[in-house]
């Protein structure tokens, strides 16, 4: 398969970015999107070495930087905005699980980073998502010391509750929800953590406080508010439901009521 790739290039956080277009051919339809980018990078490095190609103006910015790691949809590192959608045109996948068979041969594909004021660009398609770590540091945990735990079976958790908690806990922290939301809100991310813990008896003692502190941190870090457009739920690679936002709101209101 052949493609034209229109890719966002940006040297660092301070300089202005721009699109560059590259042509790539001979891609297997079973290749993943990131494997295709690997091949493009090999090509760009080789062309950078070839004086004739450079004269032709083949490349100027070197290989494209992009975050990736596990390549099996679980680490949450990959974060590409492809043809106007977080993680591209397939539903409920991360970018690394997107395959070229989902594109038409000869298509022009636009690739951008996840854009949000809270996610500054580091280089090309790589963004800084450390704001997510900071939100979780504000309360996304249960305060238990190592060694202080009772027997695991002493806390009974109904099967359905454990499953619901797991649905929320499946969040990979990629930031697709933020990149997709017109307000740049991180509500789905926050809700996934708050809800996952609030559904378990161990998480109840700190549930309200956790919701309040994490939401406050989210607002402080420049994420927007939630206006229930449900776009986040549509684009979440793990299909996390906005029902969890409702649960977050309940916990949040409880906390405010207590104040």
């Amino acid at each position: 398969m052949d493609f034209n790739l229109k890719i966002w290039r940006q040297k660092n956080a301070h300089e202005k970015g721009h699109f560059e277009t590259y042509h790539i051919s001979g891609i297997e339809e079973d290749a993943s999107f990131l494997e295709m980018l690997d091949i493009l990078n090999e090509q760009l490095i080789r062309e950078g070495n070839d004086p004739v190609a450079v004269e032709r103006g083949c490349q100027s910015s070197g290989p494209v930087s992009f975050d990736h790691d596990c390549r099996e949809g679980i680490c949450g590192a990959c974060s590409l905005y492809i043809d106007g959608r977080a993680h591209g045109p397939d539903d409920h996948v991360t970018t690394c699980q997107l395959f070229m068979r989902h594109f038409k041969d000869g298509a022009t594909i636009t690739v951008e980073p996840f854009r949000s004021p809270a996610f500054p660009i580091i280089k090309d398609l790589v963004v800084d998502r450390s704001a997510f770590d900071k939100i979780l540091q504000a309360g996304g945990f249960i305060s238990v010391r190592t060694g202080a735990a009772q027997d695991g079976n002493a806390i009974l958790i109904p099967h359905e509750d454990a499953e619901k908690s797991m649905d929320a806990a499946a969040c990979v922290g990629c930031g697709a929800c933020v990149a997709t939301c017109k307000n740049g809100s991180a509500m789905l991310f926050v809700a996934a953590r708050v809800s996952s813990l609030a559904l378990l008896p161990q998480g109840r003692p700190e549930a309200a406080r956790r919701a309040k502190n994490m939401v406050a941190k989210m607002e402080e870090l420049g994420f927007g508010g939630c206006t229930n457009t449900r776009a986040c739920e549509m684009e979440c690679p793990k299909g996390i439901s906005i029902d969890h936002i409702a649960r977050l709101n309940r916990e949040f209101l409880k906390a405010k009521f207590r104040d």
Partner: protein
Amino acid sequence: MADKLISKIPDGPLAEKWTKRKSELRLVNPNNRRKLEIIVVGTGLGGASAAASLGELGYNVKVFCISDSPRRAHSIAAQGGINAAKNYQNDNDAVYRLFYDTIKGGDYRSREANVYRLAEVSAAIIDQCVAQGVPFAREYGGYLANRSFGGVQVSRTFYARGQTGQQLLLGAYAALNRQVAAGTVTSYPRHEMLDLVIVNGQAKGIIARNLVTGKLERFGAHAVVIATGGYGNTYFLSTNAMNSNGSAAWQCYKKGAYFANPCFAQIHPTCIPVHGEQQCKLTLMSESLRNDGRIWVPKKMEDVMKLRKKEIKPSQIPEEDRDYYLERRYPAFGNLVPRDVASRAAKERCDAGYGVNETGLAVFLDFSDAIKRLGHQRVQERYGNLFDMYFKINNVSPWEEPMMIYPAIHYTMGGIWVDYDLQTTIPGLYAIGEANFSDHGGNRLGASALMQGLADGYFVLPVTIADYLSNKFAEPKTDINDPAFDEAEKAVQARIDKLFSIKGKKTVDSLHKKLGNIMWEYVGMARSEEGLKKAIEEIKELKKEFYEDVCVPGDQYQFNQELEKALRLEDFFEIGELMARDALNRNESCGGHFRIESQTEEGEAKRDDANYMYVAAWEYKGEDKEPELHKEPLKYEFIEVKTRNYKE
């Protein structure tokens, strides 16, 4: 310097060793812990749990990872589960049995005392994780659920769907975040350790490259903990994450830490087969699938040919024409034999010509019986996300046709040599989790990596490291302007400058791929003296090619992924060479290490206890010099050493 290999295993009965050691270990009082600094490199299960627990104790911890967040460490990708000797199933499980299974699964090449301790603390890990809010699978009554894994006859594996590693890591990461908020831990994401700094013979700090600015930075401490995982990516294609690497551990080796059993690499039987030249990563399908999936190839060659030409579908092959070869060869354990056994059996069938895809390198993993027996709903609950994942990658639904699988490199049992306290041969340097060598011998059982990472990080290291630190609190903070830091930084800078100066034509990945081919061919599932010697020569040649013709674009002072890869590949060349050297030395078949010279008439692995019942610990002797082999004899005082038998 063989006297460096003092394992510090306490005397006395097996079940009392850990208690005894704990009672001997010195303590640091809470007020003095504040004065002590510890560096933890890596934030997988081992690193995150250690950093969090040390922070809770009141130490000043600096934790480093190469990804943008500690949560992305590769432990996140572990699917199937975590073992613990809880005996919740009343199937006669016990600490002793978990210990026994692990020693036997490791083919009698691990330490009795370490493995027993691992089994002993396993139950507390589950309790800890539940308390942190890890949503383990539950029965309808609310009790914890279990499943079974390879190499055992009990159900002791706890799980959170097919995302157990993710959930356990999020638990440890949450504990870590709590400490970051409390101010005891400082987190340094996007930092890569490039050297260990030794002052007066003790580990005192690291040189790390800030991956965003490209600057080299110095960090000092009273002790350094390496938790950077394994070196499976030496093979280029593996189930490891793309950025997983052996470099931090390797720098420790080059600074004097012995490296143990490097040739013990695990080849996992259930991975998605290689699909073409453009592939860079292999995907694991969880071992838990072997609980209910049955592995087979056709009995008739004509069916094989038709499958390859896509003239028939696997589901059309009648039951009597299928060879469930694991059930045939190993009736007692069937599809749940250990990984090394299952991998070799797949290779045997494919070598005999029965491989079921175009490349001839694939076998079937079939769920049709399970779906009939358990129904759609229960199979969905157990494996739904794995089926989805398989479908996304292959465009074939495991609900309709069997999965195609083939073995791939997955885990490395070898690693930095450590004593019972997890201290390396360098005072003040500790290694935990997959980065050390200690618990899995020649082969790791499924669902035991998570157990070991968390055992080391939550329960072992925080206790043992106090013994070393107990007399350090009066010492001043490590001075990062010490000449040892200057020297280390200069050496790293020289390495980087050299890479940029080559200005060759070959990409880093293209050379890494070549290394991977050499490793898979000669240091893979079947190894021979001739092949291993060839591997050592070919790696040397390839290394030469790298230093003459590699191209590292860009410059140092920017986010530069090609530079990161080039630095790691330099180390992979050397790791690969040491793996081959160790495999050459170990002229026996044991665990994942199969020497074709050492097999039974039936083609089963043949161990040589008389000559090789030892840990091979290698000492670095300098550039272009042969490393020196030290042997730590393995003594089995409490169990009888037997030939592994999964047939009856």
